[in-house]
């Protein structure tokens, strides 16, 4: 709290003096270096300077010490020109190894092939080590060589979902056990995870299919 002027009348003089002290040194602070002056332009050497005078020039100004021409290298060959579509070519080369006949691709290409696996179908995938996995197709991810299918089933009252890469060399076979009863109105049936729409176990459907198939094949053999 500053003292009121009625109590100490000379106190206001001090404030006046203070401002003068503060301002004055700032006005006086002005140096020669702050004045702007343009840099003088460089005078080029005369073009036809006789050789005997060169020794009089400082070393950095002598012509052999002048700026050397910068070496410019040609750009490396463009990778884009070498291979226009690298991802596509890798996919193609993988496809020829993993799916030479194109059957597996056609089986899951639900956009073009009308007889392909579709969401809502029941599918049986058998692996090379012998154990199968059955389930309802919830979604088909068409991603070239990474194409995968999401299957859902219920084993011992526990929901199990498995996403299988269809070009996986560990897969022996993929069979369509049952088509969807009615064409689903979605491409991805994630609503089937909810309790209300869950298909529950598909094991009995698959068991019936296997029994039928075995009877059919056995009849053929005889």
């Amino acid at each position, binding site marked *: 709290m500053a003292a009121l002027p009625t109590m100490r009348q000379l106190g206001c003089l001090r404030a006046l003096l203070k401002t003068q002290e503060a301002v004055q040194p700032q006005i006086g602070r002005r140096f020669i270096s702050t004045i702007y002056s343009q840099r003088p332009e460089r005078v080029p050497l005369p073009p036809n300077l006789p050789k005997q005078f060169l020794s009089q020039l400082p070393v950095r100004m002598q012509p052999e010490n002048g700026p050397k021409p910068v070496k410019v290298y040609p750009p490396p060959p463009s990778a884009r020109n070498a291979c226009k579509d690298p991802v596509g070519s890798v996919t193609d080369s993988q496809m020829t190894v993993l799916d030479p006949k194109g059957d597996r691709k056609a089986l899951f290409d639900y956009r073009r092939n009308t007889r392909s696996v579709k969401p809502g179908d029941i599918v049986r995938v058998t692996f090379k080590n012998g154990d199968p996995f059955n389930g309802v197709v919830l979604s088909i991810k068409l991603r070239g060589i990474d194409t995968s299918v999401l299957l859902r089933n*219920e*084993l*011992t*009252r*526990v929901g*199990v*979902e498995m996403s299988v890469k269809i070009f*996986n060399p*560990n897969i022996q076979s993929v069979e369509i056990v049952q088509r969807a009863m009615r064409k689903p109105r979605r491409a991805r049936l994630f609503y089937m995870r909810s309790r209300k729409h869950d298909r529950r176990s598909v094991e009995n459907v698959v068991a019936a299919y296997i029994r039928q198939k075995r009877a059919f094949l056995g009849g053929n053999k005889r």
Partner: protein
Amino acid sequence: MIQLKTLLNCIDNSGASVVECVNVLKKKRAATIGDRIVVVVQKQRAAGSEGSGTALANKVRRGDIRHAVIVRVKKELQRVDGTVVRFGDNACVLVNKSGDPIGTRMTGVVGQELRDKQWSKILSLAPVNV
């Protein structure tokens, strides 16, 4: 992803039905199938209703602290061949300090990751593995 306070179903006949994870062993991250955890039994199975043939007394009681091995997880798990597996719940079986299962029977599917982590004893008890 099993961590502190996660509730798991216990799927063996040791007597526990719901257990709570209190520690993940040998790991600084969330536990998954095949990992060993420490659990507290939160709910025990009714002794009379479960044992239809064998009137087996519950081996564990509510509040017991036991070790357990996770056999199913909700979090999706990718295998080396690219297949991804996800179960509908989190489940475990109780084991003793030396790693043998306390129960003698198991109900329910278990993950195949147990084989890689040398839990073949549990895998042989399970009715189904995926």
